[in-house]
């Protein structure tokens, strides 16, 4: 798609009701200690995040280890039970929203067809004793779709669609390279014709030339089937390329969210700026001046008060230690949670 086409598609998406609206998502893991395994605290892996994903849109959750991006992604599929929040899901823009977190039993199982996940290491997520054909057919069998012959045809067409020969269905995972295994993982995720796929570091373990093949495949599938992706990644150059919108997380909270070009061209939050400036560019003439970020990420068991980033922030003031900054609008669709940045925005706004 050319840039104007993308802009048009983005504008249409904004007008329509989104596929997924997440409000106040929290996941706290209890920390137990001692003989009686008493709960002595909580790891606040995800501590109240809001985001939306449009139909056919790619939202990336980015941040460093421990920021909660993986926990947030897995909570949506209920692979991890969320502690609080709601996730309103609309299969189509016109359908009534369903709260994914309020569902149980059969309704959850049937909705799971719409939501799939691809993992970083397909080798760890594929059973070594099951042929890839059976691995791909398994979700279809679980949902009682198709007889034997139909299943074989469906597996063959899925394998072809992800760029593998249909006759590899009888092979075992160890006979494939990393990139081919990731194609198998994608074929399995596609089997139930989902609407949303969570890509959890899906291309992180792949070599550069193979990574490009898989990214192209994911984009083609999105165009063909109108898929939405939640892309969880730490490689920001991949994120910049693949995303429509980006949410930057730090210690369980979203600090900035916006369109991919807004985040990458005009980052506002001091953490986003530091994160972007740390990316090494494949251009020796561009040895960029880094925004130095000292120290390490604090423990999520006892995150800093107020704004979680204040212990490492060059702009930190007293109020940053006291209160979490509510998100302020930078531009349509672009919001940032930072006291000093919000003030600067208010001052430069027209009419004030």
């Amino acid at each position, binding site marked *: 798609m050319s840039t104007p086409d993308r802009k048009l598609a983005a504008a249409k998406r904004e007008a329509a009701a989104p596929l997924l609206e997440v409000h106040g998502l929290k996941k706290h893991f209890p920390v137990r200690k001692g003989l009686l395994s008493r709960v002595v605290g909580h790891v606040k892996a995800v501590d109240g995040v809001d985001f939306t994903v449009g139909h056919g849109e790619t939202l990336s959750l980015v941040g*460093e280890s421990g920021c909660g991006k993986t926990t947030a992604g897995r909570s949506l599929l209920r692979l991890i039970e969320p502690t609080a929040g709601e996730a309103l899901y609309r299969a189509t823009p016109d359908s009534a929203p369903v709260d994914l977190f309020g569902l149980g039993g059969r309704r959850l199982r049937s909705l799971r067809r719409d939501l799939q996940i691809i993992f970083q290491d397909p080798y760890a997520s594929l059973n070594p004793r099951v042929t890839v054909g059976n691995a791909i057919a398994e979700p279809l069998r679980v949902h009682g779709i198709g007889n034997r012959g139909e299943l074989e045809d469906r597996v063959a067409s899925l394998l072809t669609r992800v760029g593998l020969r249909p006759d590899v269905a009888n092979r075992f995972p160890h006979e494939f*390279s990393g990139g081919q295994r990731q194609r198998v993982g994608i074929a399995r995720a596609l089997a139930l014709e989902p609407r949303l796929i969570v890509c959890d570091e899906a291309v992180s373990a792949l070599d*550069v030339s*193979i*990574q490009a093949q898989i990214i192209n495949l994911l*984009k083609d599938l999105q165009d063909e089937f109108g898929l939405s992706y939640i892309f969880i990644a730490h490689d920001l150059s991949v994120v910049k390329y693949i995303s429509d919108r980006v949410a930057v997380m730090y210690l369980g909270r979203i600090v900035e969210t916006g369109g991919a070009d807004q985040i990458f061209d005009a980052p506002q939050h001091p953490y986003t700026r*530091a994160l972007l*400036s740390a990316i*090494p*560019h494949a251009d020796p003439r561009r040895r960029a001046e880094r925004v130095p970020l000292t120290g390490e990420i604090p423990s999520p068991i006892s995150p800093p008060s107020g704004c979680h980033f204040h212990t490492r922030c060059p702009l930190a003031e007293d109020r940053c230690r006291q209160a979490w900054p509510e998100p302020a609008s930078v531009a349509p669709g672009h919001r940032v949670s930072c006291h000093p940045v919000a003030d600067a925005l208010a001052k430069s706004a027209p009419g004030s």
Partner: protein
Amino acid sequence: MEKSPKSDARTPLLELRDLRTWFRTDEGTAKAVDGVSYRIHDGETLGVVGESGSGKSVTALSVMRLVPSPPGWVESGEILFRGESLLAVPDEEFRRIRGNEIAMIFQEPMTALNPVYTVGDQIMEAVMLHRGIDADAARVHAVEMLRKVGIPSPEARVDNYPHEMSGGMRQRVMIAMAMSCDPSLLIADEPTTALDVTIQAQILDLIRELQEEMGMSVLLITHDLGVVAETAHKVAVMYAGKVVEYADVETLFGRPRHPYTIGLFRSLPDLAGPGERLVTIPGIVPSANAFPSGCRFRTRCPIATDRCAQEEPPLVPLEAGSEHTVACHHLEEAEAL
């Protein structure tokens, strides 16, 4: 350029000549490293890039004499350190070189550090062995090294066990250990691959600072072209057990000549515009048990001809006297890629 190596004319600090390191496997002989030549001069950083299975790590392990044997062995070739053959040095004597003259850091410091000893003990062990100083002096030295690599309150941290530290801290400890004997050559094998991007930036800055301060050479092995662009003076691109292109960093990134190098740059998402398709290198890296005849890249190369299947292209200077070397029969056609 602000970082220029001290000299090119003298004997290289490290020189590999047609090195071959092979492994016996159930499927036959895997020629993981199969004719690698490169040089590192004093004070210089050589970045070796390549994808999994290109042989970049096995080359470094061969230098350190850390290739597991069996199944691996150095089949042929030369490893020269300050002009002298390392392969001829008996094991006993080599121990005085490894860790002292040449030190190595790895991708995952948790597996390289011993979990049952404090980090101080592990740094002290190396300096006591190589420098013959007593435990008290070694401890002072260990604290000093931890301070140098930016560990806060090193007097307390020296008594920590590896598991009490974060990934970034552990990599700093590994670097402190490697630097404790003031080596001439530091081999860094994917030193930042397991780290978050802000911590990666800190560690790369640290390696650069230490290099300037202590004047050592660095052999940096990575798959990340961004890391190479920011850190290296010279770059060797490896594919299927061989070096296919070598040049200084600005030349290589500015005007790559080998079809593989060109393809590698094209497949980087940072260089593609929004909505543009990524250019990919078709197919996968061939297995070390069955490299193609002739040029090993020919099975994935858009401009391969019959000649590429028959004759292996030698790694030769682009023009007489040029430092930029390329192994390709069809440089003119590659220009048009």
